[in-house]
C-alpha cells in the first residue's frame, strides 16, 4: 500500500482548497486520526451511534494489507525498514455534504476502519464538525488522558530513589 492518501480540508474550514499535508502528524486532522485509531473500537462505535445511519458511499471498501514501518537509526539517522505491519484502510464520502473521510488502523478490523472514516468525514463537514468534536473527540481525549495518568501512576509507584554517599578523605 502507498502512504496515506489523506489530505484535503482542515476540519471546520471551507470546502475550497486542499492541503495534501493536512492529515500528517502534528496537524489537527492527523492528531484526530491518530486518536481515533488508538481508541477502543467498541467505545468509538458507542459514541458514533447518533451518526450511524448517515448516508455515505464507498470510495474504497475496507481492505487489509501490509505497510512497511520505517524507523531512523539512532532516532535521527537514515531511514531503515523496521518491518511490515498489517493495516486496514477505507475511504467514504458523505452523500449530503460531499466531505470525504479516510480510516487507517493497524490490524485487520474493517469495522474499526469504517468508524474512523465516518468520524473523519463528519469532522471534515462544517455541518457536523463541532458536534462530533464535542461528543466524540473530547470524550476520547479524556479516556486516553485517564489511561496515560493511570499508567504513569502505576509506574511511579515502582520508583526507587538511590542516594550515594560522598567519600570522605
Amino acid at each position: 500500500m502507498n502512504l496515506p492518501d489523506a489530505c484535503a480540508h482542515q476540519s471546520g474550514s471551507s470546502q475550497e482548497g486542499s492541503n495534501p499535508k493536512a492529515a500528517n502528524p502534528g496537524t489537527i486532522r492527523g492528531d484526530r486520526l491518530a486518536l481515533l485509531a488508538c481508541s477502543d473500537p467498541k467505545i468509538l462505535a458507542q459514541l458514533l451511534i447518533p451518526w450511524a445511519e448517515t448516508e455515505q458511499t464507498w470510495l474504497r471498501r475496507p481492505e487489509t494489507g501490509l505497510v512497511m514501518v520505517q524507523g531512523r537509526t539512532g532516532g535521527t539517522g537514515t531511514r531503515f525498514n523496521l518491518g511490515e505491519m498489517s493495516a486496514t484502510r477505507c475511504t467514504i464520502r458523505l452523500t449530503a455534504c460531499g466531505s470525504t473521510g479516510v480510516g487507517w488502523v493497524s490490524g485487520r478490523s474493517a469495522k474499526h476502519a469504517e468508524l474512523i472514516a465516518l468520524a473523519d468525514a463528519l469532522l471534515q463537514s462544517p455541518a457536523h464538525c463541532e458536534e462530533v468534536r464535542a461528543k466524540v473527540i473530547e470524550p476520547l481525549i479524556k479516556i486516553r488522558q485517564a489511561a496515560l495518568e493511570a499508567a504513569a501512576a502505576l509506574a511511579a509507584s515502582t520508583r526507587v530513589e538511590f542516594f550515594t554517599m560522598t567519600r570522605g578523605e
Partner: protein
Amino acid sequence: MGVDLSLVCKGFDEPVKDSQSSFRTILNALSQPGTVGHLDVIPLGHAPEKWTEAAWALAMTLLDGDTRVWLSPSLATAVAHASLQFHTSCPITHDPGEADFIFVGNVNEQPDWSSLRHGEAEFPDLSATVILQVPGIEVVEPSAPNVAPNVAPSSTWELRGPGIEHTRLIRLQHEPEDHWPEQLRLALVANRAQFPLGVDLLLVWLDLVCALPRSTRIVTN
C-alpha cells in the same frame, strides 16, 4: 505525495466481483474480434467527465502500479488524475511512446501509432494497448447472399483472422465528412503488417467495447 480526495470519483462498487466480470468481458472481446462486449459494471454517470463508462471500467480493471498510462488531453482532467492515482496507483506518463495503455478521449486526439510501443521480437507483448472512444459501432449482420460484399460503404469494415470463423462486419458511426474512419483503417492495416508486433485496439462507447487486436485483418475492397 497526496491525492485531493474531494476530486476522487467512485471506482468499482464491488472490486473483486466487478473487476473479474469486466476482465472476462474484455477477454471475450479480444478473443472474438468484432463482437460487442457489455461492460456494465460502472453505472451510467459514474465515470469522470468526458470518460465513457466502458473506458473507466477498462481503467479500473486493467491498471495497477506497474502499468504506465497516457491520457489524451480531453481525458487528462484533475478528477481523472486523482481518481486513477487513488484507485490504481498507476504511473501517468506524458510521453505516449512510454505508455502501456493509451486512453484517447475522441478520434481527433490520437497519437501517431508509429510512436507507440510495438513490442520486441522476443517480447511482442511489451506493446501498447490503445483504448479509443468512438461515437458508436454496430455489428452488421451478413447481408443477403445476392448482395456483393464489397459494396459496403467505407466505414463498414470486414474483419477476418483468429477468433473470427469466417468474417464479421462492423460499421463505425461517424459524420459523413469525417476522415478519421479511413485514417484509422489505414493505421490498422499498417499495424497488422507488423504482426506479431504492433498495438491492440479497444474501441469503446457508452458501456460497450469492441476489440481489434493486432491479429485481425481488415479486408479491403
